[in-house]
């Protein structure tokens, strides 16, 4: 890589780090200032954005690597299996394992 390209890599990396770090420092300062009401110290729009960003990440991840009727069918069945196991166990690991196994089984059996 040329020197200019190295500088571009470092600038983009540093900028990304600052976007992750500076809001934390801002929030920590705000929490310290507001004292005991820690969770309530967060602006409402920000506390709403947290769960909604996770939901948005979920929506993006739903699109199969190679979209097609079979992949979508496997996604729907895999999601239902995940949900069913989560409903029964309320755990993190088993629903994920069940979902992947179901998705893999559908893709392999009908593919």
């Amino acid at each position, binding site marked *: *890589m040329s020197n200019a*390209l190295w500088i*571009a890599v*470092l*600038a*983009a*990396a540093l*900028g*990304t*780090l600052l*976007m*992750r*770090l*500076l*809001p*934390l420092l801002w*929030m*920590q300062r705000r*929490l310290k200032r507001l004292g005991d009401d*820690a*969770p309530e*110290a*967060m602006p409402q*729009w*920000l506390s709403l*954005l*947290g*769960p*909604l*960003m*996770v*939901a*948005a*990440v*979920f*929506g*993006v*991840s739903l*699109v199969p*690597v190679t979209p097609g009727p079979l*992949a979508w069918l496997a*996604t729907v069945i*895999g*999601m239902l299996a*995940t*949900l069913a196991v989560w409903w029964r166990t*309320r*755990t*993190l*690991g088993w*629903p*994920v394992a*069940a*979902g*992947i196994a179901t*998705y*893999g089984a559908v*893709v*392999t059996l009908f*593919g």
Partner: protein
Amino acid sequence: MSLQAATSPVRPWLSGMREAIPLLGGYVPVAISFGLIATQAGFNAWEAVIISTLFYAGASQFLFVGMIAAGSPLWLVVAMTLLINLRHVVYAPNLAPWLTSSRWWGWLMHTLTDQVFALAHARLPQLPEAQRLGWFTGAALLAWAIWVGGTALGALAGGELVARWALMGEILPFALPTLFLVLVAPRFTSRRWSLALSVTIASSLLLTLLGLTNVAIPLAAVCGMLCFQFVKFDTAMQGDHHE
């Protein structure tokens, strides 16, 4: 790996690593793809690994090497990379109430990807304060190491791996939506939240299908927030509540 268990009998960092394992199903194939694409774009294996280590932000890395390969001006490459990563600014403040006073948290923010945030946002509030730093360190560093290792693997042997394990490359990434479903499901606590979350999921899915993956997450979250703000149910009738 109970979502409701507040404490874990095992060491916190080990517990964090164990709970981050589902992330790997999504990280490994994508990291291998990045390593492969970076080398095809003219970067060598070391350069690809350094980009993965320093950026640690999937979509923007693909954009970065793609724009460089296309001969785009460097200032534009940097600006577009930062623009895609702008969504990260809301992650750390959402975790801040559950972070302890350790100075390590600042450095660990480098590892705060979409997926690590989703996991930490659900788990940190359930953990005792003494376990949070260890748990996050274990989960986040494992994910980071796998991302960097996967890039190296992709740069060195990506073509052969993709040809030989094509089906696994399709199945393993399904770990991500299953994990996120488990993280989102407990949030459906009222009709108001259910509607906002459903709108967000549908919006991000639709935007991704339309090829707008890079803006899907922030745009969909804003759609959900507007829905939450403006669509209200009769709380006396429905028993809705805010979290």
